[in-house]
């Protein structure tokens, strides 16, 4: 009989060993240095394919009350759908912390949030927006690099000299110019690409691409414009 009880007891003791130990996320870093404010140094509004690692890290700087860089302040990062390395770090001698960002698998905007405890309680928060392109937006990017950005982007690159300054006013809008382009409907954007500027009573400097691009390519350009708009584009039904 005793053997029976011993067996039961042993079984009960062994049972919990099969359970997975739940790991507790405990902050391994601690700091007694508190910043007054946090500023973004670089790495916002980067554009990359879904799931990709951004080319440049996001860098923030913690400042003290006098505005000077503060070393040793604890900064933590989080963002829905993002893979961040590291998730927390202490600021270096120039007050900076950098984090490498891998985007999520869903096309659209992602927000990376950096937090640091404030002196005197509370936390300082900085939000950084990054953009993930899906298939359609990637097509739009390729098409617009080939046909559009020469005139729509004031920046020149070694491969492409900007033509924007050579044009007669009214000058073209940059594709990131959300203040202007967010006000235009998808239908209007498709129309101006397909039928040229005059179709909407604008400059003939925008040629009609109806016979050059397919409707799918034109829609892809619109999707790309929507993806990189700054401020971000809100679809009309989401506004209501």
């Amino acid at each position, binding site marked *: *009989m005793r053997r029976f009880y011993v067996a039961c007891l042993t079984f009960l003791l062994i049972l919990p060993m099969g359970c997975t130990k739940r790991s507790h996320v405990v902050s391994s870093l601690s700091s007694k240095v508190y910043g007054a404010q946090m500023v973004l140094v670089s790495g916002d509004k980067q554009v990359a*394919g*879904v*799931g*990709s*690692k951004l*080319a440049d890290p996001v860098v923030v700087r913690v400042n003290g009350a006098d505005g000077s860089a503060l070393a040793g302040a604890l900064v933590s990062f989080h963002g829905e759908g993002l893979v961040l390395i590291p998730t927390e770090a202490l600021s270096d001698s120039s007050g900076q912390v950098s984090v490498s960002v*891998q985007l*999520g*698998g*869903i*096309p659209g905007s992602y927000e990376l949030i950096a937090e640091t405890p404030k002196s005197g309680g509370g936390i300082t928060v900085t939000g950084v927006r990054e953009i993930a392109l*899906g*298939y*359609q937006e*990637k*097509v739009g*990017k*390729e*098409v617009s690099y*080939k*046909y559009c950005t*020469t*005139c729509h982007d004031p920046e020149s690159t070694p491969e492409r*000299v*900007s*033509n924007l*300054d*050579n*044009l*007669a006013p009214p000058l073209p809008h940059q594709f990131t110019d959300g203040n202007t382009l967010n006000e235009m409907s998808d239908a209007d954007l498709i129309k101006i690409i397909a039928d040229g500027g005059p179709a909407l009573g604008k*400059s*003939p*400097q925008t*040629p*009609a*691409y*109806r*016979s*050059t691009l397919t409707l*799918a*390519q034109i*829609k*892809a350009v619109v*999707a790309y414009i929507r993806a990189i708009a700054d401020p971000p584009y809100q*679809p009309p*039904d*989401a506004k209501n």
Partner: protein
Amino acid sequence: MSLRNPLRRIWRFFVGTAPRRFASVSMLLAIVSAIAPTEDFFSQWRHYQKDYLRLISTRPDAARLRRRFESGIHQIWIPEQRVVDRCTTCHVALQEASLNDVRREPFRPHPAMPHSLTEFGCVVCHHGQGAATTVQEAHYSTKAWEQPILPARYLESSCGQCHMDALEGTPQLNLGRRLLARYGCAHCHAITQPDGTLVAPVDEPPSLEHIAEKTGREWIFAWTKNPQAYAASATMPNYRFSDQEAADIASFLIAQSTASDNSAEDLPKSVASLSGNDTAQEGASLYGTLFCASCHAIQNTAGNLVGGEMAPELTRVGNKVNPDWLRRWLRAPQGYDPKTRMPRYRFDEKQIALLSSFLLSKKDDDLLANVHLPPSDAESIARGKKLVSDYGCVACHRINSISPPESFAPDLSRIGSKPLFQVGFLRGMPETLPDYIAGKIHDPRAFGPALKMPNFSLTDGQIEALTTALLAQTDRAVTMPPELVRSSPHPKYHPGGDAGRLMEDLRCQSCHTINGNGGEMAPDLTFEGSAVNRAWLLDFMKNPNTLRPALIRRMPKFNLSDAEIKGLSDYMLSAYQASGFDSQALDLSTLNSDAATRGKQLFYRKYACQSCHIVDFKKDKGYVGPALAGVGDRLTPVWMYRWLKNPNALLPGTPMPNFSLNDDEARDLTAFLTTLKEHKKGGLK
């Protein structure tokens, strides 16, 4: 004792006699078969489907969504592609565009894509186990199934299973494939693509058969130790040789070198024999006016590379080359290396002297300052030869006395389906195939000190792209029905006859594409004969100038003889013709001054062509297309007319849009353009 008695009584009640035993077992069976279906009832997918119904009940179009929803297990079955996908059982809303603000999985609609769901199913692109109906089995590796879901960052690789051409939607795959060819991966690894063709390397590592003429042991030692220390842009990987190994290799390479065809030629004059003091300045400006920078780069004082990447960087070329070799090379590059892409420029003695003196001044005295090698001996040479054969140097370079190895490195044709049990992962790395491939490219020797694969200096983005291209090499790609594989192989084209030999000599196809073969730096010449007027072509060959205001890279000036120019031009005019370019295409008598006046209105007002093209250099500023001042001299009226009607038909992929012009508009614009003649300056021709 109190416990044992009731237990014994229960036991006796159920299994005490044979009939009781039978009855008990039958009861048990009945109960089991009664509760078996409840497992299905509590299954994961049913839970998701219930969740989905709750989700849509709050949507404005709930009734429509509910009508379209079917409960139960869904399946996409495509026998010829071996697709049995039940993913849509949980991912119920893939085709519900009205849910595109939903970000919660598995209820997100599928983002826009080029194929429909029923055409290819899910696993062809996303991998995973299509027939499974639980998240764990469908998405992750199990012992029986090693195909977990492909991470989104490598998703473009799936397009590469069928598509061999560069697609607009797959920039990363396209980059990866370019890198596979550019970084010489295919010299060592055989990579058969799904259309049956092998990845062909586009880099041309130099022949080392006559290397002793070109450089010395010290430089070979320094280069072998660390190619990037000599030229930051070098694609030669770092093999991490020890000093001893590098010295042995240098000894062997010098020892095996034989005399090239060039060495028998007399030496061109050196700059010392020239009169005048400003040779350095003159040499630099000659380097500029000959457009050497179209292909070669030199680091400027700010550390930026200025110039093209088609040919070797020249920042420290003065440390590398033997002055005599350089002068002979400039005169006849193909005499040293018959496969070089460098044209034979027909430089005169003075040009060679100036250029070589300029190039020899490009050096960094620190580079070889600390290289002191012991004299070469037979043992060192023998060790060097063994290293050169062991490390497969001949897979890339031609070297005397060693023949190219066959299948030197593993075949990568099916690397995208490599079974995980064959993979030796590093401790601590995620045990997935993409992580393995990326890790192997990042630091090959980390997987074993005896491995020979060298370290390529690649960025994270390049590694991601290469991994994407390699992941496209799947078993599925090999067994895809052939009619689904999209490729457009370019048949090899070489111009023939005397003109063809001249074009080889000038290496025209290093920069120009003709009939789908050649470089991308300069305009496509496939239809050049239909496009241009003979007088203009003769003039251009003699004195090439750029047609594009914003372009720094230009056609270099070859010192061609009149007979060569005439022969070459006539060949191009007759051989490079598009079909249907006879006089029937356009009635030239209609190109009158009225038409030209109307055409000018169309050009400036209706179509604002001056936004991209310059007609009048004082007034117009457009940078996008070629300048049209003098286009009446350059292009034939029929070409202009046909081009205006449909540019893409004559040059697929041109950025010039098709304006859907009607016949009258195209004719009027042509009439205007033919009036644009350049006023010839005296002495140009």
